[in-house]
């Protein structure tokens, strides 16, 4: 049994890679590719008549595999299926870091899952509040309710857009410039930022179209997403590259934190760095930059 540290609600999640929880060869060591989170899938990847088998596999994988610092999230079946309650039980009993609620449309959906998670934590004697939640927004209604969903629980780490179904509902298809998802992406980012949780863009499924994938990742970063869902390990590197801070950003962040610590020690709250006015509001951003830089292997200092 591999003890896992308490999941962190706010951590680096540039890449979340989907893996079929039913395939022993896949889930045993998906972490070697270096994604930030792996998403073990009990939903679409698992055939209807293998849901039970997938849970047994998942349970033992969670209990046996040393995923190290890679976050382990499980995508459970939708609330309109007969599977989700048992999915939650196995996730909590196995000690998954988080649960991804499929097809989430309202705060009530989150609360429903939360109640089941709480009950499972009780049943399996798991620390209350340990299991994090995130929601996949896959319908126009889910997108429109993004803010209430983000705010629905203290366990919520963030929301992810799930593009496949959403595009069908929107009566569109993947477009080169991303215009098909523009409204949804904008809405979700606004909601997540307003609620103070993270947001992740949908998967890019055409593995042969590297150019299209790269364009989409660049746009994700420019729009302010925290990360992206992935379907193949070969997509990880580019996302990490794009989401890595530049040397200039790292240097600036270091300066800000250093200056802030010096100034606040002597009681000064507002000061200037390179001619720019800085106060405490800049600190979380600078710290985020350095943490990101450390995860990318670009920062070895001790400020964070």
């Amino acid at each position, binding site marked *: 049994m591999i003890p896992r540290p308490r999941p962190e609600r706010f951590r680096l999640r540039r890449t979340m890679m989907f893996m079929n929880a039913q395939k022993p060869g896949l889930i*045993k*060591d998906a972490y070697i590719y270096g994604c930030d989170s792996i998403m073990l899938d009990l939903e679409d990847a698992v055939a209807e008549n293998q849901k039970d088998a997938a849970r047994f596999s998942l349970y033992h994988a969670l209990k046996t595999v040393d995923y190290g610092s890679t976050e382990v999230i499980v995508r459970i079946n939708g609330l309109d299926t007969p599977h989700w309650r048992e999915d939650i039980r196995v996730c909590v009993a196995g000690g998954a870091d988080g649960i991804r609620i499929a097809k989430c449309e309202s705060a009530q959906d989150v609360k429903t899952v939360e109640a089941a998670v709480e009950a499972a934590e009780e049943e399996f004697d798991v620390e209350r509040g340990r299991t994090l939640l995130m929601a996949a927004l896959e319908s126009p209604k889910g997108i429109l309710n993004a803010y209430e969903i983000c705010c629905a629980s203290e366990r919520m780490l963030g929301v992810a857009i799930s593009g496949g179904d959403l595009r069908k509902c929107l009566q569109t298809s993947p477009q080169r410039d991303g215009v098909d998802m523009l409204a949804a992406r904008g809405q979700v980012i606004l909601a997540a930022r307003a609620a103070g949780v993270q947001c992740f863009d949908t998967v890019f499924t055409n593995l042969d179209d590297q150019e299209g994938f790269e364009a989409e990742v660049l746009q994700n970063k420019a729009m302010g997403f925290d990360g992206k869902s992935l379907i193949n*390990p*070969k997509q990880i590197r580019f996302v990490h590259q794009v989401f890595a801070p530049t040397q200039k950003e790292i240097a600036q962040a270091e300066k800000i934190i250093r200056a802030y610590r010096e100034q606040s020690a002597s009681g000064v709250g507002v000061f200037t760095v390179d001619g720019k006015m800085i106060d405490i509001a800049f600190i979380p951003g600078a710290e985020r930059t350095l943490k990101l830089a450390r995860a990318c292997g670009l920062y070895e200092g001790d400020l964070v």
Partner: protein
Amino acid sequence: MKNAVGRDIPEYLLTGGREVYQGKNYMDGKYITKASPRTRRCEAPQESKVVESIRAALEQCGAKSGMTFSFHHHLRDGDYVVNQVMAVAIEEMGLEDLTIAASSLGNAHDPIADYIEQGKVVGIQTSGIRGRMGEVVSAGKLKTPAIIRSHGGRPRAIEGGEVHIDIAFIAAPTSDCVGNCRGIGGKSNCGSMGYAMTDAKYADHVVVVTDCLVDFPNMPASVEAIDVDAVVVVDSIGNPKKIASAAARISQNPRDLMMAENVAKVIAATPWFKDGFSFQTGVGGPSLAANLFLEKYMDERGIKMGWAIGGICGPMVELLKKGKVGKVIDVQDFDLDAVNSINQTPGHYEMSASQYANPANKGAFVNKLDFVVLAALEIDTGFNVNVLTGSDGVLRGAPGGHPDTAAGSKVCIIVTPLTRGRMATVCEHVVTVTTPGDCVDVLVTDYGIAVNPLRPDLIECLDKAGIPHVTIESLKEKAYSLVGRPDDLEWEDKVVAVLEARDGTILDVVRKIKPYTGTEE
């Protein structure tokens, strides 16, 4: 008697001056006497050497029981010739006590397993042994232990007279009526015929088997008419689909790609990665994919590869055509891109197995090699590699050019996943040592890189380049923590195969396996 890689070699095998493995370059500087064949003069002008059947050729060459027949494996899994010849010799002519000395044998040769079980084939000398043949030999059904040699060890043994070939069979995609052979121009093309060349020079008799007779002279010939006794035309020498795949594709498996990228990183971190460097890679997933990443580093540094050798396939030919490699010298071809390029694309040449890898000659290409990237079935904490036996103890592989290139190159990189299914690739002791650890420098796995402590210079290179590496012991422990520590295999005393080091000393033996059936208490 224990040898330099710690393997216990039974004394009874050490007869006739045979020694156990003593370490790399042990035979350097020693003199050998080359063997000479006893061949028939063809002084009177001959219109044609074409005979009507394999049987006629065998009879003309005086085939009889107890002889050694040689074959080469350029037709790979598509080969029909070994089975055709052996069927005629054994079933039509009733010959017995035959020995097959092949450059390699594979899944195409399952029928030979029957002749082994019947006791008609009593000796096998080869690099590769797989499929049913591997199983029957592992089960102890071959009368004498199989002798396993590397691609360089084989021409050494032939030239030194350790293998005397009575009749060499040349599977020729094209031949003219007197036996000038080429690997192209026919319907079952294989490109290079490098492994057949030494056979033709040192066998008492040489029979060409072809399915495409062409006009005289068939030039430039890979095997020359001056060595050929008879030419047989058959309907088909092999299945073209299995001889050469359409194009060896670079793996898309993310694990392979990740390892391949690390291989390229290691190469680029060494001082030998400079303009004009030389390179060989296997055709396995991660080995071949290393080409792709190496090209990126070459472009970045603005350097070109001087030359490449080995079994060749499309991606290397592509580099040659793009002008990124100066010359490609080729002992065997794996896909149609390579088959169609040899001796056609400027700079793409054919070579013999001896020229490629023979440790007893004076100019083998492997000795000038900077880098070689190779796969492994197993590698142990002494960096000894096994590419012959599965971790269940059954023969199912081939040393091929592995020990030769490892010994000759400046940097030998093994690339393999840490585990395959439930098999730990990195382990405490390999089942069989096919390449000694003193020839292996770097191990790249999906769980990390390890450098042989014998190469502090490489450790320094990696440290300087900021490439993380760990001990091979820690990789082994990781592997066992994933799959569990395997039980020791159980063996009987009987030796079923002798593994010769490339220099002719004995590197290891394979014994008969005692299988676990699950019903034991």
